[in-house]
């Protein structure tokens, strides 16, 4: 696990002698109203703007205000894959923050605590503790005019001092954030920042946070920094989506908030509906009207949408459904992560109802998954589910700016008159419904329906017709499977263990694979992005390893396998597939994956 420490390159611009570090993990621990997300956001954007790699990790309480909350930032000049198992710096706002997170600090790590509120254990020599008057310093800097509001900016000043961050760039970011509100608020925050920056911190814990050169692979495109939900919004807009509807639900609400604000600029709209069912129904109405539409939700809302999803599959309507997974069942863990909606995504709703499911594996991939979902929904006239999760939705990452010159889709409705009899559901080819407004020159106007229907869309309950239509709906999704790119394996292309994952666990699994390989084991990593249909060639890849260990944040279920593992076992009938599962509401740590592999290996030897 790389952590802050001496590195070979030398520093140039530092006013004091410091060390160049590869990457650093900063954990901010406080309560939800302490504004620690804002500090994390500043640091993430500073790193992204400096062409550094960055990844954040956030837990937020389900309560309205108050309750413990953390924000972890990892940034560096190498490829950052995961938020980091242990931190180099812990900032503790409260005694409980210190107590809860002290063990997570690495040996020799730095505890930065509020000396007004926290009494650290003086006997603890494992770490270096540095106190600063975060509360009283903030109050003094503002002359008491805003009580202790602004503690987060004070901490930002301390961190800037500790790691010798680029103050001008940070103030530029503060100007962007506060300058819009008023010059006074910006100036007050600068006063707080300056007071903290001037606070003398113990010299020997000051380490220059001067990264090595930015990644070579960065390419010509600049980095953009955002969270997963924002990336989904950008991907949808780039893919030509201009209409949709939703009902607020954690942790998916920011998608609807952003779309509600953005789409009117582009000549579209996002409607807040009375409930989740109305939201998918309204989105389907937009799609029927000729606009490929989206609805976004999380677990409980996904459950409510199921009947209408089935209508979309039966009537063959393009639609995008974003499910930001959280812990379930029922209300479950609204602000914590779980990957337990996979089986629902591929099979939810009654009847045989094939659909497309994509699981983005990073914040950047949220953009591309949403973008592709729009293309696939259009091309295959079918609902496409984007299966994101809470971890990816709140995580801030920097990624290369997508190339809009190549990608951008300008939406348009074609109302070209249709000649003769139109078969919207031809047995032998993928077709599309005719949007209203289209003149039917043959004289017969179509009715889209959830009843089984013949090739023209007319209700038809005959047994042979239902058989043929079921095949049609299945085969068009299978046709996509044949077109998907072959899955790429990282690391050893054959050998001992293939680690398989899906969604937000990508970075941790990749790091685990690297560590196992550094121990001399022959290990590969494959992250499956197309959950339905699965890409071709998996069986051939799996056959090259003694074991295929599927890592996922869900339960092993009644039969000992997680949800993706169960799907893979049933689809491929390969007995070497095993499961590494957990359901503690948190993302996998690299160490937990390694422990899972060891456990499976030990039980295989018995």
């Amino acid at each position, binding site marked *: 696990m790389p952590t802050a420490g001496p590195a070979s390159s030398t520093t140039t611009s530092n006013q004091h002698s410091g060390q160049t570090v590869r990457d650093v993990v900063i954990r901010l621990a406080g309560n939800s109203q302490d504004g620690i997300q804002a500090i994390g956001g500043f640091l993430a954007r500073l790193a992204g703007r400096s062409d550094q790699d960055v990844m954040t990790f956030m837990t937020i309480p389900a309560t309205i205000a108050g309750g413990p909350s953390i924000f972890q930032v990892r940034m560096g000049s190498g490829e950052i894959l995961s938020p980091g198992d242990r931190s180099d710096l812990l900032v503790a706002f409260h005694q409980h923050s210190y107590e809860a997170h002290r063990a997570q600090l690495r040996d020799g790590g730095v505890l930065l605590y509020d000396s007004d509120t926290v009494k650290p254990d003086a006997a603890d020599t494992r770490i270096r503790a540095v106190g600063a008057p975060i509360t009283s310093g903030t109050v003094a800097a503002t002359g008491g005019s805003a009580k202790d509001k602004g503690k987060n900016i004070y901490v930002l000043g301390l961190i800037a001092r500790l790691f010798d961050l680029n103050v001008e760039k940070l103030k530029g970011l503060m100007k962007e954030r506060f300058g819009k509100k008023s010059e006074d608020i910006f100036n007050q925050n600068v006063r707080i920042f300056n007071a903290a920056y001037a606070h003398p911190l113990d010299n020997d814990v000051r380490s220059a946070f001067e990264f090595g050169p930015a990644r070579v692979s960065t390419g010509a495109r600049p980095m953009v920094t955002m969270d997963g939900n924002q990336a989904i919004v950008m991907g949808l807009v780039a893919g030509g989506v201009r*209409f949709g509807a939703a009902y607020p639900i954690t942790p998916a609400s920011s998608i609807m908030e952003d779309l509600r604000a953005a789409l009117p600029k582009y000549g579209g709209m996002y409607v807040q509906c009375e409930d989740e069912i109305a939201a998918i129904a309204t989105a389907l*109405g937009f799609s029927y009207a000729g606009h490929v539409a989206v609805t976004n939700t999380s677990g409980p809302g996904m459950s409510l949408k199921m009947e209408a999803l089935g209508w979309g599959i039966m009537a063959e309507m393009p639609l995008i459904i974003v499910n930001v997974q959280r812990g379930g069942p029922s209300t479950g863990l609204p602000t914590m992560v779980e990957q337990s909606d996979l089986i629902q995504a591929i099979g939810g709703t009654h009847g045989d109802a094939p659909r497309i499911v994509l699981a983005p594996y990073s914040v950047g991939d949220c953009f591309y998954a949403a973008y592709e979902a729009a293309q696939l929904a259009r091309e295959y006239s079918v609902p496409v589910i984007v299966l994101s999760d809470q971890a990816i939705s709140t995580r801030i990452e920097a990624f290369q700016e997508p190339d809009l010159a190549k990608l951008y889709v300008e939406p348009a409705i074609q109302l070209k008159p249709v000649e003769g009899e139109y078969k919207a559901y031809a047995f032998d080819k993928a077709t599309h419904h005719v949007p209203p*407004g*289209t003149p039917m020159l043959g004289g017969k106007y179509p009715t889209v329906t959830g009843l089984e229907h013949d090739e023209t869309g007319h209700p038809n309950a005959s047994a042979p017709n239902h058989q043929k239509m079921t095949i049609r709906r299945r085969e068009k999704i299978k046709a996509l499977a044949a077109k998907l790119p072959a899955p790429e394996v990282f690391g050893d292309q054959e050998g001992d263990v293939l680690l398989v994952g899906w969604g937000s666990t990508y970075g941790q699994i990749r790091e685990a694979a690297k560590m196992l390989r550094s121990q001399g084991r022959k290990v590969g990593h494959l992250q499956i992005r197309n959950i339905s249909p699965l890409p071709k060639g998996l069986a051939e890849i799996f056959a090259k390893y003694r074991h295929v260990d599927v890592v996922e944040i869900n339960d092993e279920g009644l039969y000992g396998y997680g949800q993706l593992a169960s799907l893979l076992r049933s689809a491929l009938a390969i007995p070497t597939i095993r499961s590494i599962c957990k359901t503690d509401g948190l993302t996998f740590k690299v160490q937990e994956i390694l422990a899972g592999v060891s456990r499976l290996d030990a039980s295989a030897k018995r």
Partner: protein
Amino acid sequence: MFTLTRPAPAAVPAAPLTKTTLKADNPTWCPGCGDFAVLAAFQRVLEKLQIPQHNLVTLAGIGCSSRLPYFVNTHGGHFIHGRALPFASGVSLGRDDLHVVVFGGDGDGFSIGGNHLDHTARKNIKITYVIMDNSVYGLTKKQTSPTSPVGFKSKTDPTGALDPALNPMRRLLGTGATFVARAYAGQLPHLTDMIERAMKHDGFSVVEVHTHCANFYDEAFDCFNSRKGGKFDTIDETKHDVTDLNAAFRLASMETPGVFGVFYDVKDQPSKNAREAGLMERVQANFKTTDGRALLQSAFNRMK
């Protein structure tokens, strides 16, 4: 203002709407069903208004009445039970050039879809909604409906319905709908007039039509039928102020059989369609361009 809700119209002259061009499937309703009258009235209105055929959209949920889209030759949709209104909302809000008419029964409107009725009406989305209320679940062969009277014997209440029926007109007036009318399948010219006025309304218009079920509740509306000892009184709009909600509630609270006609009709409320267009205009005024790619690029620039 740049909007995608008004696509370039199809460049063909619309064929005139006649009984022949509007005819689609033969209705599958039972002989003697009141729903035939609603279909006939709707077709008469379409012949009169001569809206381009390709711009007409007829939608429905689930039930006997909800089969109507198959029987009229327009673009149509047969959605799921109770959710026709939100589906229609997407169609209407997404396309200013379409005329969206939704048909459904008392189950769709007052039971499974009750929540949607409230909010579609409150938002004043430009849709005409015709509720074909027969006070019984007919498609599933006689179960109690939310408008079945106490004592009504059905397969789910073999000893007679226990729960009070809801009052459809009070319910509709309470939703905030900006056009509310009441009609009876046995009075075709009046029913036609109500549907026509509803379709001309700019906003959410709803017509409650009492349509008897010949098989399972044939006698339901005998009280409106003068040949069977009932009476059909219409509202005198020189005496009833259709913009007075309290007066409308008083009409809705009359003893059965009550009165028929337009209870409530206000024209000064903007539709949601218009409000969303206003939002688009205001939002776009803040930006130098409506070029989508340039807008998205500037959004990316803010994240650098």
